[in-house]
């Protein structure tokens, strides 16, 4: 481990000395919902910047924020919610002002064939249907709550899942008739899950902030990666995954 750190440090020093900020290893902590799109972005970034190596840690945004606050050596943090970004700016781990790089909105997810004949948000109040939502403590659950409040619907969920992938699993297996998840999640689930847009979705638009860390071991490259995510090329990849532009 110490040797690895030494190598990383050496690489960083070499990078600084040569004034080539886009080489060396870049450690990116990114929200789990960014797994597919950021993996692709990382490859594109490496192709564009030979000598750069992007390493990802995908997990729930709050877990990542905690790890950063505990001192994990990270260059870039991409959060699925402003709240988790705020945790790291409050602690001083991030001093630059975070930039919103994508937005995500909710969509109704139903199993293939829509066995519960779900047509809109009103069906979530039907106790005869099996409904899954995210727990309020996680971003997709907080967003769902806003949407239901806006639509004045009292949802009758059967389960409040700990993350969006768990909700999707239940939709995919047909254990629930309907769920509220992000568009990107519906897209990533492929054919087994159908997505339905609904008008109240724009009451809970989720913004994804990104920022380089104040103590980024590879500060120059960190900034370059953030810029790349915000670039036209980056946005294109993110749009393919179902995200909307900010």
């Amino acid at each position: 481990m110490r040797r690895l750190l030494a190598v990383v440090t050496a690489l960083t020093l070499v990078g600084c000395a040569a004034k080539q900020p886009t080489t060396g290893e870049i450690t990116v902590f990114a929200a789990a919902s960014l797994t597919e799109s950021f993996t692709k972005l990382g490859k594109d970034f490496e192709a564009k910047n030979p000598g750069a190596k992007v390493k990802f840690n995908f997990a729930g945004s709050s877990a990542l924020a905690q790890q950063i606050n505990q001192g994990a050596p990270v260059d870039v943090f991409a959060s699925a919610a402003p709240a988790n970004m705020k945790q790291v700016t409050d602690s001083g781990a991030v001093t630059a002002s975070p930039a919103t790089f994508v937005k995500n909105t909710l969509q109704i997810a139903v199993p293939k064939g829509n066995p519960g004949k779900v047509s809109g948000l009103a069906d979530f109040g039907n106790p005869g249907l099996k409904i899954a939502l995210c727990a309020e403590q996680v971003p997709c659950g907080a967003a769902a709550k806003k949407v239901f409040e806006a639509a004045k619907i009292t949802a009758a969920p059967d389960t409040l899942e700990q993350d969006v992938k768990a909700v999707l699993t239940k939709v995919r297996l047909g254990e629930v008739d309907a769920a509220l998840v992000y568009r990107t999640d519906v897209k990533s689930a492929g054919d087994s899950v159908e997505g339905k847009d609904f008008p109240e979705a724009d009451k809970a638009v989720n913004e994804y902030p990104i920022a380089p860390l104040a103590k980024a071991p590879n500060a120059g490259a960190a900034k370059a990666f953030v810029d790349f995510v915000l670039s036209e090329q980056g946005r294109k990849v993110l749009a393919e995954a179902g995200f909307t532009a900010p």
Partner: protein
Amino acid sequence: MTKPPAVLLLPALAGVAFLLVPLAGLLVRAPWADLPRQLLSAEVGEALRLSLITASLATIVCLLLGVPLAWLLARGDLPGRGILRALITVPLVLPPVVGGVALLLVLGRRGLVGQYLDEWFGVTLPFTTTGVVLAEAFVAMPFLVISVEGALRAADPRFEEAAATLGASRWLTFRRVTLPSVMPGVVAGTVLCWARALGEFGATITFAGNFPGRTTTMPLAVYLALETDPDAAIVLSIVLLLVSIAVLAGLRDRWISGPT
């Protein structure tokens, strides 16, 4: 008491530290002032009650199914016993979330068995307290089976023969001779099983979901609290810890140092 050799003592102390220091970390970081409020809150009470009930029911299920299974493995004359034993330990190595998915595939609303339960009896197990019990039992049963089977294999089967020569049926022999002689193993297995069920998270949230009062057990509450309020999560963990230690210590007094 003999003086342990340093070769054993040092790793042993390291082991104690390794196990206890994280617990100490929880205790040090705990917002103690907040503890009474959390303890008395309705959500915590509900989750704690649900945890204790489901873990105990799961343990009963494990005892009812696991002890006979252990007997079959230790004494039964069935072919492929080695393979069966290996299969039974699968829930030990399986990530609990995968176990939960497996349960959904079998007992879920569209599952291999579950679809008929729904169709014929109108019974659906996911998202119910019964589902929590099943998930916990699924994950915890191997602990009981392995422990009881070990005790049964160590027990001398000739005592069962002696009982037979006295006119005891197989069932009477099992109840009055075999079971009492392996009681320490059964108690140890039950304790392990209960503790594992109490701490169960992955299979429970995957199979039974999370709904307060119905399926939100303490570990689920801890996990979700961690999302927004790490301090609350620490407090909840300590509550779970204290309750489980109290129950286990109570069991120990009652069973292990009780009448032998």
